[in-house]
Every structure is written in structure tokens, then in C-alpha cells.
């Protein structure tokens, strides 16, 4: 892969539009030394994390509510299904008008993108819980709260985890839209500046950093799930976080 990159950069426009790997590494090193890389990574990671936590939490709560309550499903289900296919980027003009280009607008955009995969998976997961689990719990005297937290949500967890994992990628997708719409720091903001300055080496360095953050986030998430919920990887369980 690296060899192909070297060859391609040699023949393509004398490296101007296609810098060599070491030119990209030098740009990365430069960004690291000046401290702007750390600042941008922290800003982008914070936006992705806040959006993921807020959107994920709301997705799980609403998914449980619409999955287990027909009235709430009738009230909100159609609305969510209508909003779900909308690309988050289509919300940018409205969010700028409502919230400006400050941090809350970015959090809302990422949360919006994260919400729907988590909501639909939690909705389907809680709806598909084997009724025998619920009957057993009821016959053992489980309260509504115990039924929700100790039976239905754990039984739906494989689906919820799938939704959360999908939404990690969506969070970074939305982050790109959020930072392109207006920001003063962040990895994508820096890539945008690099494009205007025709610094393709810094642009590619930004792409590599963004991809790396996304990969690290996914790896940390899978490790957390494996430690927190070891039973998810047990034989007979459909979900296998290690191989997913």
C-alpha cells in the first residue's frame, strides 16, 4: 500500500496534489510540534463524544419507550421514521439560524446523527425480547423497574450495542459536517484551512488523524463492551463483539 502511494505520488503532478508519505509525515510532525494537532484532536473528540453520549442516551431511552409502549410508538414512531433518512448535513442551515456556529450547534448535529441508529436498534431489540423472559421475571415478582433494567434492556443489549457501534462512525460523519459548517478548531476545520492554502500534505495528514480517532474510538468501545458485558460473547448469543 505504502509502495503504491510512493509510486503514485512520484508520477502524479510531481507530488503537488499527491504528496509522498514522508511529506505527509513531516506535516503531521509539524502539526504535533506546534501543538495544533493535539488542540484539534481534543476539540473534535470532545464534539464526537458529547454528541455520542447525548444522542446515544436519548436513542436508548426513546427506543425503549417506543419499543415497549404502543401509544408512544404511535406518537413518535412515524415522526422518527420520517426524520431518520434525512442526511444530518441537511440540518446545518437550520442549526446555524437557531444556534449559530458555536459548540451547541455541533453537539446537536452529532447527537441527531447518532440518535437514529441507536433508537431503531433499541426499538427493534426491546420489541423482539422473547416473552418467556418477561413471563419468568413476572412470575418471580419483578417490578416494572426491575423488568426494564434487569430483563428487557439486557435481553435487547446485542441490538443496542450494534446500534451504538454503528453510530460511532455516524458521529464522525456528522463531525465533518459540523466543523465544515463553521468552527475555530478541530481536525476537519484544519483540513478545510489546508485545502484553502493548497497544503495537500496537511489535508491528507488530517484525514489520517480523523481515521485514526475513529478507529481508536471503535476499538475502545469494543473493549469496554467485552469487559462490561462478558456474557455477550458467550456461546449461543447472536452478538459477538470481538468478531463484529
Amino acid at each position, binding site marked *: 500500500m505504502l509502495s503504491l502511494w510512493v509510486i503514485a505520488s512520484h508520477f502524479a503532478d510531481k507530488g503537488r496534489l499527491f504528496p509522498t508519505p514522508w511529506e505527509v509525515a513531516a506535516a503531521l510532525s509539524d502539526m504535533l510540534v506546534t501543538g495544533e494537532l493535539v488542540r484539534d484532536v481534543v476539540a473534535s473528540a470532545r464534539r464526537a463524544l458529547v454528541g455520542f453520549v447525548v444522542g446515544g442516551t436519548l436513542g436508548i431511552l426513546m427506543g425503549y419507550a417506543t419499543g415497549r409502549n404502543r401509544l408512544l410508538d404511535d406518537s413518535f414512531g412515524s415522526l422518527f421514521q420520517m426524520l431518520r433518512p434525512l442526511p444530518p448535513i441537511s440540518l446545518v442551515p437550520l442549526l446555524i439560524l437557531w444556534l449559530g456556529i458555536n459548540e451547541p450547534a455541533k453537539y446537536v448535529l452529532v447527537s441527531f446523527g447518532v440518535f437514529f441508529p441507536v433508537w431503531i436498534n433499541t426499538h427493534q431489540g426491546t420489541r423482539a425480547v422473547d416473552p418467556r423472559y418477561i*413471563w419468568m421475571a413476572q*412470575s418471580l415478582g419483578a417490578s416494572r423497574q426491575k423488568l426494564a433494567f434487569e430483563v428487557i434492556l439486557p435481553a435487547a443489549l446485542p441490538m443496542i450495542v450494534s446500534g451504538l457501534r454503528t453510530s460511532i462512525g455516524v458521529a464522525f460523519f456528522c463531525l465533518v459536517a459540523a466543523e465544515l459548517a463553521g468552527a475555530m478548531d478541530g481536525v476537519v476545520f484544519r483540513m478545510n484551512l489546508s485545502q484553502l492554502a493548497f497544503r495537500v500534505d496537511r489535508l491528507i495528514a488530517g484525514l489520517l488523524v480523523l481515521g485514526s480517532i475513529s478507529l481508536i474510538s471503535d476499538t475502545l468501545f469494543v473493549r469496554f463492551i467485552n469487559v462490561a458485558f462478558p*456474557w455477550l460473547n458467550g456461546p449461543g448469543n447472536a452478538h459477538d463483539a470481538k468478531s463484529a
Partner: protein
Amino acid sequence: MIKVDSLSFSYPGEAIFDGLTTSIDSGEIVSVVGPSGRGKSTLLLLLAGILKPSAGNIEIDGVTRSVASQEIGLVFQDVALFLWKSVIGNVLFGRRAGASPATRARANSLIASVGLTGHEHKLPSQLSGGMQQRVALARVLANDPRVVLMDEPFGSLDTRTRWAMQDLVLSLQCERNFTIVLVTHDIDEAIYLSHRIFALPKDTDRLEEVVVPFPKPRIREGIMREPGYATLRNRLLELQ
């Protein structure tokens, strides 16, 4: 005592029971046999208070039941345990069991009584099918139920494990004197375990009650040589 009085129940477009009346004594073991789809599991769910009859009622010790109750324990075949809870977590799930030191000690003693000491902190996925059914039994017994309803609990076990589980159920029932209603496809299992067998014949809404005439305790190897065993077995097969 369980009293079923003029019980009717139907799924959309299909009547399952129409005016069913019967009773089961305290401490009695009754098996329910019949072809698939005839309503064996439905009868258990009605007795458990999970399904509501369209007419008639069910009394347990003189009290009409219409909701699930801790006095009635449920054991299923393939969804025996909460996969996300350890053995001790499953046994402590019932509200009565709680988590005080006394109830924890009681849970440990129940786990010991089903022969699983040393496995308390294992997940269900780390146990064999027979061990999972033992935990399911211990979990139900942690609530001191008066009635245990079992829906083909040993259907997926190999013969040797199934026999061991049948003997374990008999010894626990003898010790605690709870009533058992057991749905099974295995006629030999029904005869070995039960005082009476309820057969739900195909294409009728009748319930045939057959008394198992062999005295208890029974010896597995001996019971098949009892005079009348083959006749009883054939009669039950014909009723299915």
C-alpha cells in the same frame, strides 16, 4: 389446591379450551400430554396468570388468580435462565429472595441442593443444558412457590441427564411438597413422574384425566415391568 372452573380460551379464530373444569391437589404431580399446538403450553400460561381466560376462572388455594404471582414458578425448556446473570444472580432474582446475607445463604443452599456448589459465579453460557435447568429449578424454589409449572423442561437434554433431572425434581418435590404441572411429549417421563396425566386429544376440546396406578416412590427400571404399564402407555399414545 388448583381448581379450574369452566375455563374457556381462544386465540383469534381458534378455540383452545371451552368450559374446561378440573382440579389438582396440593403436592400432586400432573403431566399434560398431547400433540403440538393442542394448547398444553397455553394451559400452563393460563394457570400462571399470564394469559387471561375468556371465561371461567382458576383458583389456587381458594384465591382466584388473574396475574402472575410468586406463588407460581415457571420453568421453560430453552429459555431457562437470564444469560446476563451469573448462577447466584439468577437464583437471587426473585423479589422474595432479595440479597440480604440470610437470603444469599439460602440461595447458596439451594444451589447446593441442585448439586452446583462451586458454580455460583459462572454465567449460564459456561454451563451445560442440564446444569442450566438445575439453576432454573433453584431460582424458582428460592421463592417458595406452592405450584411449579414446567414447560418441557427436559426436552433438550440427553437421556442420562434427563433421568437425573427427573429424579432431582422428584426428590425436591418430596422434600418441599409443592404441586407440579409438567408439559411433556415424553409418555414414559409422564408416567414415571406423575400421579395423574392430563391428555389433550387432537381435534377435540376435551381433557382426558388418566390416573397413574403405580405406587410411589417408583423405580425407573421396575416401573416398565409393572403389569399394566404397556396398556397405560398405549392408551396415552392413542389419546395424543
